[in-house]
């Protein structure tokens, strides 16, 4: 299957043609937002912290910001920083994509008004340049899809997650890449998922991430395994932790696991990958965007509206009440699995067609309504 995308100098293919305006740290966000407000065709990539972050925590923050800059959905980037060093850290890490990059360094300007003016002019030029690019036909193998869930209920495990799983299998079969994340969701079925590993080193890398996460939680006094399924889950019909975990991981389909990634890390192979991330959706989707996912399929039962800025986020629901109540926020309705007895294969194939439509330019609700957010996970406290 093919889609219409934008070719980037490094050979990656974007499904959008935005200019990213990237804040190097939290104190720059007002300028980033002002520039994006003034220039059509830009998206803001803001962040909290960076000031006060050190060591591994700072490296992950820099890599995640730069990773979003490298995402092929961005035709170019304007990096706005407070001072030279950190601004250079981000700009230099994007440079190898060959995309046009501009910088604004606040301390070298006459203040926020001057910095906003300089940023507006630079962003406007970048947008003008990007607008001369045209979509061309590319095979689905150029796509990387993140799979996510939030606001889950019984229908998630029965309809929306398995439908996303079918679409994920179709993309892998077409030579593309899929990433599933949220480490804690695998607890209880980690051995079952590990059986899908393509080789022993992948299997061990996956189990290390999940069991390491459990150990870290235990050290904080949290027993994730022993507390699942929670009484509400049991009341809803879930009997075991394996069943709960399998419902969540059914959105990863059935193909072999070929790679294990850390937060925001880019896959180097095609096929199904696992990324170790915290469970909250905004943090997890930020890591997808940084890893190069061009889009995300997001399963929701009771309803969750948030999307990612860099990676358009397709909301999929199989709950008729949710689709009826908030139709504007659900991009793809898979209720027919429950309502009309249609098969997961059939409905998942339609979802795959929609994934390719969105890749070719069809807009999703969170883009149109600008209900998007960025959050880079913290791994150590501020100093």
């Amino acid at each position, binding site marked *: 299957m093919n889609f219409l995308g934008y070719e980037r100098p490094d050979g990656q293919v974007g499904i959008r043609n935005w200019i990213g305006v990237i804040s190097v740290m939290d104190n720059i966000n007002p300028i980033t937002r002002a520039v994006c407000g003034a220039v059509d065709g830009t998206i803001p990539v803001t962040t909290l912290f960076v000031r006060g972050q050190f060591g591994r925590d700072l490296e992950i923050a820099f890599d995640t910001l730069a990773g979003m800059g490298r995402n092929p959905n961005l035709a170019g980037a304007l990096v706005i920083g407070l001072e030279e060093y950190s601004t250079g850290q981000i700009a230099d890490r994007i440079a190898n994509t060959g995309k046009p990059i501009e910088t604004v360094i606040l301390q070298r300007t006459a203040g926020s008004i001057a910095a906003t003016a300089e940023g507006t002019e630079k962003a406007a030029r970048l947008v003008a340049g990007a607008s001369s690019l045209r979509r061309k036909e590319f095979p689905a193998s150029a796509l990387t899809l993140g799979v996510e869930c939030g606001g889950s209920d*019984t229908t998630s495990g029965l309809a929306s997650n398995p439908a996303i799983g079918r679409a994920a299998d179709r993309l892998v079969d077409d030579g593309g890449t899929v990433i599933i994340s949220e480490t804690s969701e695998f607890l209880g079925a980690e051995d079952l998922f590990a059986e899908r590993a393509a080789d022993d080193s992948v299997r061990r890398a996956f189990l290390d991430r999940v069991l390491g996460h459990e150990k870290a939680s235990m050290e904080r006094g949290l027993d994730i395994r022993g507390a699942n399924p929670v009484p509400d889950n049991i009341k809803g019909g879930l009997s075991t932790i394996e069943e709960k975990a*399998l419902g969540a991981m*059914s959105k990863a389909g059935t193909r072999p696991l070929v790679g294990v990634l850390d937060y925001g890390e880019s896959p180097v192979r095609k096929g199904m990958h696992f990324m170790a991330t915290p469970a909250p959706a905004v943090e997890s989707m930020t890591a997808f965007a940084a890893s190069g996912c061009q889009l995300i399929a997001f399963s929701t039962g009771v309803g969750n509206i948030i999307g990612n800025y860099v990676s358009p986020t397709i909301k999929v629901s199989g709950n008729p009440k949710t689709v009826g109540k908030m139709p504007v926020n659900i991009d793809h309705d898979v209720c027919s699995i429950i309502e009309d007895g249609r098969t997961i294969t059939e409905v998942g194939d339609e979802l795959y067609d929609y994934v390719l439509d969105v890749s070719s330019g069809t807009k999703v609700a969170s883009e149109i309504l600008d209900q998007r957010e960025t959050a880079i996970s913290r791994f150590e406290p501020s100093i």
Partner: protein
Amino acid sequence: MTRAILLNESDNVATLIDDGSSGDDCLLQGEGTGSVKLGRDIPFGHKIAVADIDIGGEVIKYGQVIGLATEAIPAGQHAHVHNIESRRGRGDKPA
């Protein structure tokens, strides 16, 4: 009408998508067809056996083992925490 979804053709349990009453002919959909007679009242979202499961037998959903039967579960009977034991730990029992 009482319906249940079979998620994988190798599954031996299906999930109810309507509240079911004892004696209902529960229609299978998804990756399964046919029907099973419900052995008792069973709520939406809960599981039924679609084939007889022996004591100690594997309970299969999503094509994978979600636990072991702690007693024989005849087709049409409620399959839940009272007759399925996790192999990994469970909220209302020590892990």
